[in-house]
């Protein structure tokens, strides 16, 4: 049985979801990790496999290769700008975004940006595109800031997503996470997404929950993961229960199988 909940996005609904999160969380042991590893190893792959919530939601359907656009760049810059504003509350969000962009330029100019990185891409685009990236990042930072503004407990922004490398299976799992709410009994994760949640948004959220738990060094699951869709004004949440962790792991394995079948069909 799943613990998926659906709510309208209001500050009070979000606070309630956080306060009413379970007080105990599950823990993945080495046996769980080994079991998952063996399943991934059983699915052959020609190239390195990268799985995330989006690949689960789209059932492993091949997507176009990643490239930087103002939309793909907004989250990294926007979250970093918001973290900057948290450190310097007197700073305007737009100024913080501009500072982040300037820092990326500086990194590229001093040779610290590798090809393919955001800084490298940004250094090579026209100034109009840089302004568009600034506008997109400001949009993102504002909406994440508005979500966080309604919280009445201590929270922090995650500097990075969660990554878990499955040993000897040529597989990397990535979980998106934006805000961590720290409670005495554990952590609650908030993940902000653009657009409208689809029918498979729940499995996507469970995949993020499982990967975040795997990435935790002690294997402790978050008390709850909350997906926030500000464009749609929707909240979805999943508890860190063992049933949901197992379902998340199963979805990830199924996605790898679906990907492998598609690759085989293309090769044939």
């Amino acid at each position, binding site marked *: 049985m799943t613990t998926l909940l659906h709510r309208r*996005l209001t500050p009070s609904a979000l606070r309630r979801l956080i306060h009413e999160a379970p007080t105990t969380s599950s823990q993945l042991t080495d046996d769980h990790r080994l079991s998952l590893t063996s399943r991934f190893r059983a699915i052959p792959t020609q190239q390195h496999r990268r799985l995330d919530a989006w690949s689960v939601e789209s059932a492993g359907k091949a997507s176009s290769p990643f490239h930087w*656009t103002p939309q793909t760049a907004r989250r990294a810059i926007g979250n970093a700008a918001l973290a900057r504003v948290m450190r310097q509350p007197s700073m305007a969000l737009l100024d913080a975004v501009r500072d982040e962009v300037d820092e990326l330029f500086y990194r590229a100019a001093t040779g610290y940006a590798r090809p393919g990185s955001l800084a490298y891409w940004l250094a090579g685009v026209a100034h109009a*595109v840089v*302004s568009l990236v600034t*506008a997109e990042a400001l949009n993102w930072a504002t909406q994440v800031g508005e979500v966080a503004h*309604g919280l009445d407990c201590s929270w922090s922004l995650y500097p990075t997503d969660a990554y878990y490398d499955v040993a000897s299976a040529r597989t990397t799992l990535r979980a998106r996470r934006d805000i961590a709410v720290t409670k005495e009994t554990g952590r609650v994760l908030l993940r902000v997404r653009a657009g*409208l949640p689809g029918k498979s948004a729940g499995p996507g959220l469970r995949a993020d929950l499982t990967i975040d738990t795997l990435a935790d060094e002690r294997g402790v699951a978050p008390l709850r993961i909350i997906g926030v869709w500000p464009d*749609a*004004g929707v909240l979805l949440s999943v508890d860190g229960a063992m049933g949901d962790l197992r379902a998340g792991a199963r979805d990830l394995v199924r996605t790898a199988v679906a990907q492998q079948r598609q690759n085989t069909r293309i090769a044939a």
Partner: protein
Amino acid sequence: MAVATNDEAHRKERQHRNGYEKHNEDGEEHAPRLSRVTPLRNSRAMATAVLTKEVPQSIIASLRGEPSLRPLADTVSASGLRAQLEDGLFEILGTAVPAEPLTVYATSLGQVATTNINQSPLGQIRGVLVSQLLRLLSVGAHIATPFEDALCAWKAEVRTSELFDHLARLDSDERARLRTDVTAHFVTLQRALGTVPPRWLPRTSVRTAQRLGGGTVVLRDVVDLMVGSSTTLHASVALFDVTTAPLGVNSERTMRYHALLQTLRSNVVPLRTCTFSTATGETWIHDVDYTMLARSVDDVLGALYNMWKNS
């Protein structure tokens, strides 16, 4: 509240009332004003007063309005509006489930029997480019070549589009005309908009999508520029829409629709909704209230009724 003592318009009005219409009398009237702004006989009672504060010149200043007069944020109307929409939807669809969700956009609210020349491919390209320029202006970008900058920003955002193909097929004359057209619209926009203060949290191309009737209907919208925050005690969110067409009945529907979707999205009623035509330089600004939102609910239900009837 501080007020000005007098001004030329009020003086003339009084002159007409008192029968001062002869030029020589006017000349005599001016003489004492060289030393004293207000004649002695006029320095007591005043029929009208003029605010000494500067009249807002830019749209942004108009959107801001007087902060002390802002109402408390309305966080209770959204659920009622949603219920009205759901009830109206059930009256239209009943228990029927359309094969594809019925999707409502701001453009769906227009009259079906009319043809809008601004919906021609060239008109659409011009609209898209002006929207891009608004995005750049909102973050204080320096725009030296509006057409090229807008095109560059658009291509970075959208990889493939039918409008791209149309743009590529334009000959040099048509392209030059479009460049001039976009530049003219941009100049109008830039002059009217004013500078957006960074503290106002300007967001551009803000998308909204709301599902109704268990997913049988999706309301979609894009607001060109949004300022203010929905987390403040007083209403502060202002919605700004730019169009390259003259303003008309549809513009009013669009303004209402923006306000409705923003209310459903954030559960907070915005303060103002505004639309600006770069074709005429005309601006319409309305304070958002429940009546306006209820009218928009009727607009949406009317559009859905037409869509369902014609499907």
